[in-house]
């Protein structure tokens, strides 16, 4: 395996995730153009931007569901562009898709077990208990089929499954989509708690205000290009960002 160090940035700290000038798309359409971004260890980073800006495409490209045409993705020092998702999961990155992110025909417990498919057999129940500590609701309903649960509960199952392998980085695609305002608060609280317990989080959100408030840093993506970057506060207070993307 080629071990390549990513560029040192921000005073020499090595980025956990380093997206370098990535261009990607489907078929003939190019959706991302020359996008670069980084996530450091333990950091929470938001990507905001209008619909069709390429946020989900960026997530999929990072996670190997889509391969970059140009540019590279480095994770923990290794070039992961071109790897299969399961090889990326092995390296400690998990992904919570926006829709159909649970196995509806499987029970809650089975969903969690599938999240730890790559883990050693012995410690799966310990891992499950850890997730039940985060989401006590899931313990109550562990034998229920995930398809019969509410949107918020499904989001918990999806997040819990992604955390089963104790990843270094969790990608979350619109975790608040389709949830009631009250549930959005609950879910974001959980995300903050997860982030505090160790893993870095890269989150794509329509709900830019809330997401930026909680994030260490953010990127603004528009028409497939990286327009702004800065700390969450900087972006929230930037008049241009506000005018264009925060509806304020």
């Amino acid at each position: 395996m080629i071990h390549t160090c990513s560029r040192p940035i921000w005073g020499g700290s090595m980025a956990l995730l380093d997206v370098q000038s990535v261009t990607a798309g489907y078929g003939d359409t190019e959706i991302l153009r020359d996008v670069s971004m980084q996530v450091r260890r333990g950091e929470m980073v938001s990507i905001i931007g209008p619909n069709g800006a390429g946020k989900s495409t960026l997530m999929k490209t990072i996670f190997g569901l889509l391969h970059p045409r140009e540019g590279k993705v480095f994770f923990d020092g290794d070039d992961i562009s071109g790897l299969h998702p399961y090889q990326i999961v092995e390296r400690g990155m998990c992904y919570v898709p926006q829709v159909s992110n649970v196995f509806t025909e499987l029970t809650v417990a089975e969903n969690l077990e599938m999240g730890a498919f790559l883990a050693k057999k012995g410690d799966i129940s310990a891992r499950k208990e850890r997730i039940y500590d985060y989401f006590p609701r899931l313990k109550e309903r562990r034998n229920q089929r995930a398809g019969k649960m509410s949107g918020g509960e499904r989001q918990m199952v999806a997040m819990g499954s992604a955390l089963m392998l104790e990843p270094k980085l969790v990608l979350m695609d619109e975790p608040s989509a389709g949830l009631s305002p009250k549930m959005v608060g609950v879910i974001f609280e959980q995300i903050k708690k997860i982030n505090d317990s160790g893993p870095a989080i890269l989150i794509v959100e329509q709900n830019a205000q809330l997401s930026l408030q909680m994030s260490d840093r953010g990127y603004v993506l528009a028409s497939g290009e990286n327009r702004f970057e800065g700390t969450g506060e900087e972006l929230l207070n930037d008049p241009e960002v506000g005018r264009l993307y925060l509806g304020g």
Partner: protein
Amino acid sequence: MSMQDTPDDAVGRRHDDRSLRERIGAALRSRVALGVALLLTLVVFWILGQRNGASLSDLLSLTVWGIMLGGIISLGAIGLTLVYGVLKFPNFAHGALVTLGAYGAFTIASFLPRGPVLLPFSFGWELLAAMVLAMPAVSLVALVVDRVLFRPLRQRDASLVLLAMASLAAAFFLRSSIYLIWGPDFLFYYPGRANPALHLPLGIRIQADQIFVFVLAMILVALTWLLLERTRMGKAMRATADNPDLAQVRGINTERVIAWTWVLGASLAAAGGVMYGLASQLRPEMGFWLLLPMFAAAIMGGLGNPVGAIVGAVIIGIAQQVSSSFINPAYGPGVAFVLLVIVLVLQPQGLFGKGGD
């Protein structure tokens, strides 16, 4: 239900607005209605049999034989439903895997020393050993076919129709290979060996072999169920069938899941082929003629649902056998087709399928 019902309609009014015809239509298109219709079909078959001079004990025997046949069909139907669930295409080559299992065991048994007959059955240990060896052999064939035919199509995101057509091509290729290797004549595992019927209460006559076939089929079915419900790979199969994209995201190596699905499906098909060959004789077309009953059973149970496939298989097995009391047994697959049409008209999702109303 109907287009004119807007969400802001009062709940009370909505029921009155639905015309009687609509309500009858909806009731007819339910799982319960389908179950009743299938049972009624069986009853009609019984009555038709009796009209044609079959005695009660004849009909009972035929019903029991039908349950046995259902056991064999279910071995094929489970494989079909699993492959459909995980790979999302109807595998028309599944019948050829059944035939291959029967012929493979024939050849393997011919190399094994012939042991004593296991009374009251008509076969010896060598046939059981041959069946156990034929299962991995047929699995290997299925894996090779997947590697050279289906995997390249899968990687190019081929449509369901293309994959189904490819499987039809594989079916013809395998069938022709069987003709080339073993010839077109009927073969018997034990030519000329007698297999007298046992006499059970109520005048039911049944061969010991048939009981063996059914018990073995049920054991294999139970093992398959345990595998799907309890093991890591079984759960991964169900997860992949449920949501292949998410399975990848969760770190499941879907190509490995697909490989194990072929191994499981082909092993069950091979075992089914040996049992079918034991219950009748070996013909190059035997699996091809089982294809329609297998598909009908899988669809009746709800495609992708292994337990449903077993129920469907038993219903079709009984219908085929009982129908032979009033029509030529050669029309068996036609009977399966009639039941399939009933399912597709009343409840296309089947008895235990996903979705529907």
